[in-house]
């Protein structure tokens, strides 16, 4: 439903803007041009998507997630105190964060939801402070290799599509860190 509204809204805004600004001919030319641009984009990122999904599968089976989660334990313990008494929760949480980190979205979500379900137990449908932090952490995306974006850049002829990596890392660390901090502060004042 969200997408239907988004699509209709974008088309409606385009039509209104074109009528107001007298860009009718450009607008109608944009329809087939845009549709073809969709195919061109899909084709230009096709190779990278296939390769990175392959690498994702490899990472999943190579036991790297297990190694990473050991490194993560001390940090997780600070953000989510419950992991000290709940071993299963700790496993789900670290698997969720590691899978996100390695760009394995399909593996990350089920683990994250399992963790969320454990955190929601006995709360009568009210999000606990730790659950809020878990979701903020998941909406902030800390990713080692943003493969899709790099693919789009490569498809557009960029000479070094991965040179954005340091900027991406700093940015996502700041947004995750400050997001969790904001959640922690809000948790102190939000009584409802």
């Amino acid at each position, binding site marked *: 439903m*969200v997408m239907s509204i988004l699509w209709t809204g*974008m088309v409606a*805004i385009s*039509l*209104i*803007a*074109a009528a107001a*600004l007298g860009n009718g001919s450009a*607008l109608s030319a*944009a329809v087939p041009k*845009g*549709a073809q*641009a*969709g195919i061109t*984009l899909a084709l230009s990122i096709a190779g990278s998507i*296939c390769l*990175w*999904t*392959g*690498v*994702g*599968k*490899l990472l999943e*089976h*190579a036991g790297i997630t297990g190694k990473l989660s050991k490194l993560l334990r001390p940090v997780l313990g600070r953000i989510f105190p419950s992991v000290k008494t709940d071993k299963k929760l700790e496993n789900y949480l670290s698997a969720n964060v590691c899978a996100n980190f390695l760009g394995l979205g399909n593996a990350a*979500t089920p683990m994250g*939801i399992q963790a*969320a379900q454990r955190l*929601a137990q006995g*709360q009568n449908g*009210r*999000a606990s402070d730790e*659950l*809020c932090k878990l*979701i*903020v952490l*998941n*909406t*902030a*995306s800390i990713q080692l*290799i*943003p493969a899709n974006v790099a693919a*789009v*850049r490569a498809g557009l002829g960029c000479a*070094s599509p*991965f*040179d*954005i990596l*340091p*900027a*991406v890392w*700093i*940015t*996502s660390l*700041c*947004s995750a860190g400050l*997001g969790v901090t904001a*959640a922690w502060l*809000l948790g102190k004042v*939000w009584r409802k």
Partner: protein
Amino acid sequence: MTDYIVPVLLLAASLFALRKQENSYDLLLDGAADGLKLLITLVPTLVLLLTAVTMLRASGAMEAISAFLAPAFRFVGIPPETAMLVLIRPISGSAALAVGAELMAEHGVDSLVGRTAAVMLGSTETTFYTISVYFGGAGIKKTRYTLPAALFADFVGFFMASMTVRLLM
């Protein structure tokens, strides 16, 4: 330095898999086939969304929205050309990819706007979707302060994307 990250990761993943006696080549093949399936589901979405985004650009709406929001964006130091991306990113991942790709093509993939768009895409998530999936899965009705905190994290992401691109690249 960044030139070696990806090849090293490829080698490391393959070595790790071999050490665990996993058949790394078959795993890669298997995953690549899954990637092809993923791509096929992505193609219709990209066609529709790029049609809409190209229409927004050609109609002058994209520029009008950027111009309208420009004072606010300039005030916080985010390039106003990215306004559409900032608005759509928390709502739909594929629409954001379409808007971002169009921005990179229109302004140049190595331009300030193109790079900022790329960093924004790479370092933020589809916030509303993520929240609904997690709270839906956990059966939560009272979401309390999650949305404001998550949107604040997004804002930090958009801001830091602009800063890091300006200062680092």
